[in-house]
């Protein structure tokens, strides 16, 4: 079991400063929200996939394809029911509502894949240092990075406990809803206790190593915005401006859809 999406590859996207990657991720989110037309949204999705290809991280799609499909199907059905348009298609579904549903499905999938590319190319340590460099308080960044590091350990503990309880006859699949929910108790209590009981030792270890001893910190792991980062950011901002200009000029809309 490998809960982390990070892929250790040597690509220019991997080598970018974590702040640049955070801005790119944010920019991708903005790009995905500019258009309403499914055709334009599909182009944005292709752009995100192209980034994923350059980062050699598309293999992670195999791990999240089910989520992407469920989100897409759910979204299309939902907006076909809740949205309305001018052109009847079948039963109570209008053409514009269906197109909007497809557009939103592509939009969500594009943002989720953009998040996947970010996580495939950015280590936990880089996320933490990126947050600090963006003036997020160190203690908060420390909590985020520690939690990220501990997830595989806690997940492995949970998996072991789950297997142990099943081998003793715990059957999570039988009974009504309430009975099945209550059966999770012998799993959740040990996970909680085995993790939380280390809090005091953990805190003492941190303080003995000078955690919070001085306001200004230095870091072993250094990052800096280089020429490559500047070029990437300039190109991306230009792309964003062109996209917004296209939208203002009236391209990429969806005529006839009402919510």
């Amino acid at each position, binding site marked *: 079991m490998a809960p982390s999406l990070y892929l250790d590859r040597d690509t220019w996207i991997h080598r970018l400063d974590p702040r640049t990657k955070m801005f790119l991720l944010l920019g991708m989110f903005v790009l995905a929200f500019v258009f309403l037309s499914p055709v334009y949204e599909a182009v944005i999705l292709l752009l995100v996939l192209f980034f994923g290809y350059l980062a050699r991280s598309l293999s992670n799609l195999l791990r999240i394809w089910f989520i992407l499909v469920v989100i897409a199907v759910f979204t299309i059905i939902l907006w076909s029911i809740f949205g309305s348009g001018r052109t009847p298609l079948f039963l109570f579904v209008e053409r514009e509502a269906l197109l909007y549903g497809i557009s939103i499905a592509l939009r969500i999938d594009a943002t989720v894949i953009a998040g996947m590319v970010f996580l495939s190319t950015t280590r936990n340590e880089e996320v933490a240092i990126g947050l600090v460099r963006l003036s997020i308080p160190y203690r908060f960044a420390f909590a985020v990075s520690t*939690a990220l590091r501990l997830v595989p350990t806690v997940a492995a503990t949970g998996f072991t406990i789950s297997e142990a309880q099943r081998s003793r006859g715990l059957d999570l699949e039988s009974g009504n809803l309430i009975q099945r929910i209550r059966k999770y108790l012998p799993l959740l209590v040990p996970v909680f206790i085995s993790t939380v009981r280390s809090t005091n030792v953990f805190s003492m270890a941190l303080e003995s190593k000078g955690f919070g001893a001085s306001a200004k910190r230095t870091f072993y792991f250094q990052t800096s915005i280089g020429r490559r980062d500047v070029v990437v950011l300039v190109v991306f901002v230009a792309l964003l401006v062109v996209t917004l200009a296209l939208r203002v000029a009236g391209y990429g809309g969806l005529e006839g859809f009402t919510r």
Partner: protein
Amino acid sequence: MKEIFTMWRHTQMVVLVALSAAIYAAVLIPFKSFAIVPGFIEIRPANVFPVVFGLLFGPAGAWGSAIGNLIGDFFGSLSLGSIGGFVGNFFLALIPYKLWGAYFRNRNMETNVNSGEKLAVYIATTIVASLACADIISWWLSLLGLVPFTVALALITFNNAIMGSILGPFLLLALYPRVKRWGLLWTEIMEPDEVATSGSYNTGSILVWFGSIATAVAGVFLGLSSGGPNATVIGFGLLIPLIVILIGSFMLGGREQVEAAELMDAEEETAQVR
């Protein structure tokens, strides 16, 4: 709400944030959810944790739940919607300990569900916190035009409330004595002057309840009355009741819980000396 910032001074609270977040995110992975409607509505056992974290670890539980949910999204569903999840889960853990302190002030404030009254208050606070969390996330998703308000509201409220109400009391009964023995309750770690006080518990409680219910009712009404879930109408129309939840949370304070814990510790020490 002062304590959500001052808690970062305590190393133990920082560690509790990290551990709570790790538990919340990690339990999503090995303990698979079970579907009510396959692919659409599912119950996640991990959803019990935010309310329990809030009652045991106070502000550390709130930050832990928010970060844990975000990390959960890191494993395959990170998107702009994750911002709503962060804020919603923060309030899912924050509201229970705030309301608990308001209801049991000047009485036994222990966050242990060992009486009928405490169980009833626990379930009520779980339901209102689930509703507030669902209001925030649904509002955000609706504002982005991703999911209709009514659909998101129903799914999130059901998911959080059912797991928190059924599993939460048992979990608290099992965990509270241990966490107290380890000295990890937030009321034992923080100092009274680091926590905000309140002179208007009743108004604060009423505002949280009113805001949570009003947001849900107004969201459903706006979504249906304007011929569909209009993102702009819902986005601006629900701002006021959402702000009411925020103001109510600010008014609830929490210092009395810390003072009560200090008093209880002093009494226990005196009893031991005797």
